[in-house]
């Protein structure tokens, strides 16, 4: 996994609560057996005016001028500003794959659904949780004529918005994995002796689970 290093990015404001993973990447694109290529279909039903299917040439489709991803101010955005309960619904990891493939590296919201939140960390996306009032303030700034830029520093757990510094909390283990770009499976396999010992004990205690 890629190491998460400090960067400055444009903020794209998506002003809706309870954005679900069906909206982030609709089901027809889940038929792919690959991990990549989902970016052009991120938020497909909101982003385009016509119905999208896998294999279509998205450059020829009619885009919805009212959707934020199509707003020239937010072109090249790498930070998504969102509302409460972002990523609810289906466990599809295709949602963070689509966000990452589009170019988002950070999401800022007052809260996330648990599975989505967890999936982000497996894909070098940092989901930042901030108080609803602070998020409100960022929405006001991000709606200005000129795009809002934020500096993101995971090591320091800080967002820099102009002169303002906003701190955020993140689980130390997840932070470490993001910063170092660590592979979870590799980490777990360092404890293979402990797994062996557990299995041996459980084989005796609950033999029907190993029948």
């Amino acid at each position, binding site marked *: 996994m890629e190491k998460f290093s400090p960067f400055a990015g444009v903020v794209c404001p998506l002003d809706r609560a309870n954005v679900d993973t069906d909206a982030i990447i609709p089901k027809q694109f889940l038929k792919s057996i690959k991990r990549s290529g989902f970016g052009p279909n991120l938020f497909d039903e909101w982003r385009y005016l016509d119905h999208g299917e896998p294999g279509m040439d998205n450059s020829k489709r009619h885009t919805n001028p009212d959707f934020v991803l199509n707003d020239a101010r937010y072109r090249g955005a790498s930070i998504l500003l969102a509302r409460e309960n972002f990523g*609810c*619904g289906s466990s599809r990891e295709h949602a963070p794959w689509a966000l990452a493939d589009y170019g988002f590296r950070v999401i800022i919201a007052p809260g996330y*659904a*648990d599975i989505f939140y967890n999936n982000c960390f497996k894909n070098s996306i940092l989901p930042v949780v901030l108080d609803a009032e602070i998020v409100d303030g960022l929405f006001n700034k991000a709606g200005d004529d000129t795009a809002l830029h934020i500096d993101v520093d995971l090591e320091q757990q800080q967002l820099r918005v102009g002169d303002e510094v906003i701190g955020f909390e993140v689980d130390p*283990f997840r932070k470490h994995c993001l910063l170092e770009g660590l592979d979870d499976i590799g980490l777990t396999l360092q404890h293979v002796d402990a797994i062996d010992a557990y299995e041996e004990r459980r084989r005796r205690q609950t033999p029907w689970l190993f029948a």
Partner: protein
Amino acid sequence: MQAKTLYDKLWEDHVVRTDEDGTALLYIDRQLVHEVTSPQAFEGLRLAGRKPRRVDANLATPDHNVPTKNLDQGISDPVSRLQVETLGENCDEFGITEFGMGDIRQGIVHVIGPEQGAVLPGMTVVCGDSHTSTHGALGTLAFGIGTSEVEHVLATQCLIQKKSKSMLIEVVGKASPSVTAKDIILAIIGEIGTAGGTGYAIEFGGSAIRDLSVEGRMTLCNMAIEAGARAGFIAVDEKTIDYVKGRPYAPSADQWRQAADYWKTLHSDDGATFDKVVRIDAAALVPQVTWGTSPEMVVGIDASVPDPDIIDDAVRADGMRRALEYMGLEANTPINAIQLDKIFIGSCTNSRIEDLRAAAEVVKDHSVADSITLAMVVPGSGLVKQQAEEEGLDAVFLEAGFEWREPGCSMCLAMNADRLEAGERCASTSNRNFEGRQGQGGRTHLVSPAMAAAAAIYGHFVDVREL
């Protein structure tokens, strides 16, 4: 000894090791696998040169993409077909048991797991599907995971986890006979909201939960995720143990007593404390109908569509207006005045034999209203379908004008050919009423099987208590 919650017991029995910061390695007893969220996980194993640690802990079936009619013609959509074929190839290559298309045991993963006894009390159960919470009905710790974690479980039989907070939702009193598990869980979601359970593992308890059959409990736990909780579960009782007995993957006779003795310990101890407790009065509940685009947008059948103009919270009122516009509904419309186009009875929430019996009881000797363009029943598995046919339920549905389909996820998420067209309105026994969930522009109202069946007959929602 300190009183423990059921969650404490399930958690502690599966911890392989814990770091100082509370990050734990949790052992997984059962992984269910389907075609949509597994191909990249198997590919990951191949690229890293890894093998599954325990092939016997995995059970696979295709469900999301499978057609529900004309199975002899195979899958016409080549992209869907490739995904289903890929599951078969991966299972062959790695030696994982798969119930493929055409196998009577094939069906929705969350239906076949318990049906086969492949999910047993006390297990940790995962699947690359958020409705894995279903299996908590059997007293398991069961939750949905992403594809990276599917690969992690294949490779290590473990997951890196932190313990959630605990919530007890106690449903006290006695529910009216027409108020089903589906109505109870919808009412709970209406009460605590779709983010109410975020960060929690929910135990459902109380007399109204104990009164539910094991299948009803599956319906309830299925939608814990719609309340924001990855896992929802219920203490083991005699009903749970009776349910498991005799199933193909259940413990053999010589291990049965040992297993059952252990399962009987799987309940929260007297005096155990929870981080949060919610109490719901079952006697006050009525059949529920969702009106919006989130499961928390739900009211009783005797109510009207809510009015955003009287809501103070601006973000919430804005969400309600957007939902009403998408749903093509006016505020203050009585729920029983809402006319439907299609009826869907199925999904991992409500496609088990008891669901089909409840719907058939309402449908018997009636006909689907002329205004309904399609009413379909999709059993949860080949074995559910077979059982229903043995009981003559297929004839009840067919005579009334329903279509009787082959098992799969079908129009719950419309990955196969079963879907709503833009603007069509559906009474659905599934679990999500999100925008576009059942087809782009489609409008979903979530209800119980009996309520969906009644809506099919009348063409609009009716109160099943009055039938």
